[in-house]
């Protein structure tokens, strides 16, 4: 009987630490690039901000694919494929891999803003995301 309770707890704990690890790693790297603090509110604003794409004239934002409510499943705006919720509170796998976070920041910032996001912008967004 005891086992049943212990196992999920351990799973929960370890997945929580993995997320914290990856995010701590990211923040250490941002610090090395001169970022001294990060703002959840600025991150949230940037997440919801609309940018006009030069080529198509259409608005793009992080919410185009991930949605506004990060605890919900997102939907790729071009291919329709579903995207797992970004919020770590409902998706244990979210934000647990440094390589993956970096890869998608690069791709998605380029697509959405037409340029890469600065270390400060990434730190702000990540602070917002991790608390969802």
């Amino acid at each position, binding site marked *: 009987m005891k086992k049943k309770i212990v196992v999920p707890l351990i799973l929960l704990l370890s997945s929580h630490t993995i997320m914290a690890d990856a995010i701590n790693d990211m923040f250490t790297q941002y610090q090395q690039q001169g970022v001294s603090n990060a703002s959840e509110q600025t991150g949230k604003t940037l997440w919801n901000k609309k940018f006009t794409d030069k080529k198509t004239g259409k608005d793009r934002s992080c919410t185009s694919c991930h949605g506004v409510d990060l605890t919900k499943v997102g939907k790729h705006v071009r*291919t*329709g*494929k579903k995207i797992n919720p970004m919020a770590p509170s409902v998706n244990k796998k979210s934000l647990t891999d440094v390589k993956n976070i970096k890869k998608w920041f690069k*791709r998605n910032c380029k697509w959405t803003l037409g340029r890469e996001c600065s270390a400060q912008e990434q730190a702000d967004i990540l602070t917002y995301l991790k608390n969802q």
Partner: protein
Amino acid sequence: MKNMTTFITATGVIGLILTASLVMGDDDKYERNERDEGFLSQLFSKKTDVAPVKNAVYKEECGSCHFAYQPGLLPARSWKKMMGDLENHFDENAELDKDTQIALTKYLVENAADDANYKRSRRIMNSLSKNDTPLRITETPYFIRKHDEIPKRMVQDNPKLGSFSKCAACHVNAEKGSYEEDDVRIPGIGKWDD
């Protein structure tokens, strides 16, 4: 317990012998499919239209934005061209780090349609001339011919679909590499009878 161990060992040994004899066979194509396919699916390959994807990295990297298209749906020259410009991938940024890009190019080229031992791969190849290097499966003559009876209202104008690129939305067994006509369900419309 002991019986179980014996069973597992025996199965393993038989499996090894069978695999080894396949790999050593002089038919080059057999060997190629075997590598990605495993022995059992090789036996039943008549039912499969294209080799299913077994490569976990490919599934993850090329299946995050859309259905992970099987390598056997395009010739090697198409994959090489596509993999050489992932930064501008159909107006999307699909950049990969150098190592992953090299590994996935190798996987795609080795399992491309050119000499795959699967019927749809062969038909796609036959529909192309030597110089055609399509970047879209949906633009190959074979694909167009197979889908030209489906009206626009069911695809482009269908709010639940939007384009032909979403293979798995209609072909319920697309993940397994099966595109049989009988296994088609068009979103919002249902079974296809022609």
